[in-house]
């Protein structure tokens, strides 16, 4: 077992894997990494199975001291990332010797970064996952965000093989542009104004949902008036429209049920982009059909698997 000490947690850091699907009937959402694609790529570069637990950081990354040798990969746009004060590349496996301080620094594009570790962070599996459910207070490290002074165990796997990021996959984890297009499948009648509006990501966003603010110009608002409906099950990626007219895209820790109308749902192939939306970014929705959405997901997964095959679970 290796140990990592948390010197500074950054703005909001928590342990996440790919979550705990299958428990909605007791009110437990899937949870897991808000940007599952970045987590999976980071894990594959280290020879980890996709579902291996890592540290998810938000806006500002943390500083971590490694007491034991490790192989790590920082996925995300963290240009000031340092190993013992020396600039270190992201999206690349790095060897870390005992006593090394890894400092991630600000995340400048997108909003999250992942510190993946060969072998994964070793916290207890709770309801099938190591992911932290912050509002429920379970999973991860004591069900909470990381704090300065925390110690995390990791399980190094030796011998190991790491790989460089194939060029063909660079676009999958590249820093997102200032205007992000989310492909979404409409639900019910199409309201052109709603679908054509440009919206800004609000700072009132978290792992439960990303709130989109209306433009100041009322003609650009694209709001649609609806009555409240009977509470029903909500999928992650659902685009809810509360009476205020500011849509909320449900994230991994979303309430499992809700009573606001939903006008569409972000396609599975683009769900990870929701986890990259940074307050102030511009979002546009692009309508696609269910079949197009499924085909796009399969194409993406085919290229991912061809360039960087998945690692079987140990």
């Amino acid at each position, binding site marked *: 077992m290796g140990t990592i000490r948390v010197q500074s947690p950054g703005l909001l850091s928590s342990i996440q894997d790919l979550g705990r*699907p299958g428990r909605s009937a*007791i*009110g437990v959402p899937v949870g897991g990494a808000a940007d599952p694609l970045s987590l999976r790529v980071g894990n594959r570069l280290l020879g980890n199975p996709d579902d291996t637990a890592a540290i998810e950081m938000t806006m500002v990354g943390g500083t971590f001291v490694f007491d034991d040798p490790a192989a790590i990969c920082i996925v995300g746009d963290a240009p000031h990332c340092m190993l013992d004060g020396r600039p270190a590349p992201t999206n690349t496996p790095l060897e870390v010797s005992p006593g090394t301080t890894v400092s991630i620094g600000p995340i400048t594009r997108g909003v999250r970064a992942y510190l993946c570790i060969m072998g994964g962070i070793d916290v207890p599996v709770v309801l099938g996952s190591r992911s932290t459910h912050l509002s429920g207070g379970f999973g991860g490290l004591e069900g909470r965000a990381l704090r300065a002074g925390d110690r995390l165990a990791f399980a190094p796997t030796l011998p190991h093989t790491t790989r460089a990021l194939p060029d063909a996959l660079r676009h999958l984890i590249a820093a997102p542009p200032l205007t992000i297009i989310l492909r*979404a*499948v409409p639900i019910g009648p199409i309201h052109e104004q709603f679908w054509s509006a440009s919206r800004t990501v609000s700072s009132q966003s978290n792992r439960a949902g990303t709130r989109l603010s209306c433009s100041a110009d009322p003609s650009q608002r694209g709001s649609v008036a609806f009555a409240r409906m009977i509470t029903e*099950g909500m999928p992650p990626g*659902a685009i809810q429209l509360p009476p205020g007219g500011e849509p909320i895209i449900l994230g991994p820790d979303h309430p499992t049920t809700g009573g606001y109308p939903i006008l569409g749902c972000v396609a599975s192939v683009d769900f990870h982009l929701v986890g990259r939306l940074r307050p102030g970014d511009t979002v546009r929705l692009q309508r696609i059909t269910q079949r197009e959405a499924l085909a796009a997901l*399969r194409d993406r997964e085919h290229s991912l698997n061809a360039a960087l095959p998945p690692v079987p679970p140990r």
Partner: protein
Amino acid sequence: MGLPPASPVAPSLEWIGDAHLCVRLGDAISADSHAGVRSAHERLRRAGIPGLIDLTPAYTTLLLRFDAMTLDPDIAAAAVRGVLEGVGSAPPPPSRLVDVPVCYDPSLAPDLADVALRCSLAPERVVELHSGAEYRVAFIGFAPGFPYLTGLPKQLSVPRLDSPRPRVPAGSVAIAGDQAGIYPHATPGGWRIVGRTPVRLFDVAASVPSMLAMGDRIRFVPISLDEFRSRERR
């Protein structure tokens, strides 16, 4: 709250996004739609439909999540229709009766006086009505272990708070409109709080993490502040 035998309902299916299928078993909150959702949930949970990975029951609907990588929407919808044929004609599965202790002391019931005023009732009468009714867990939703309860006496219908509280203490027993519920964890919340239970509704270490389940019948049993404190420490 005795449920009349459910009449058969023909479920309607609608895809939500690329991988979720919403099964609708009624248009209004009723004993029939509840029984339909319960039996549909039971059947689908056991049916072993390939790629079906999650089920979210609610008042009138059941949301099904499929593995998007292997999903063929037509085949999945046909399989669901097949499993649900005649659903609602069978009597719903038997249900448990669960007593939930509640302390209605004003120190734990910040909205009790206000609810009494709004309903033109004495606070003691609000407690009598609230603890005298039998509720049913329509489903567990919103947050881990949160029960949506039907059966609130009509006299206690009050609107939600204008702006939600930033933090509702764990165990808060709350009402809003014709709904009743219990907050298992400290969360923001907009329902009016009329009491608090010392019982832990959600415990990840337990073999069954959610104390309550869809279909349970619930009675609130008033307890004193002393009893609340002693049970809370346990």
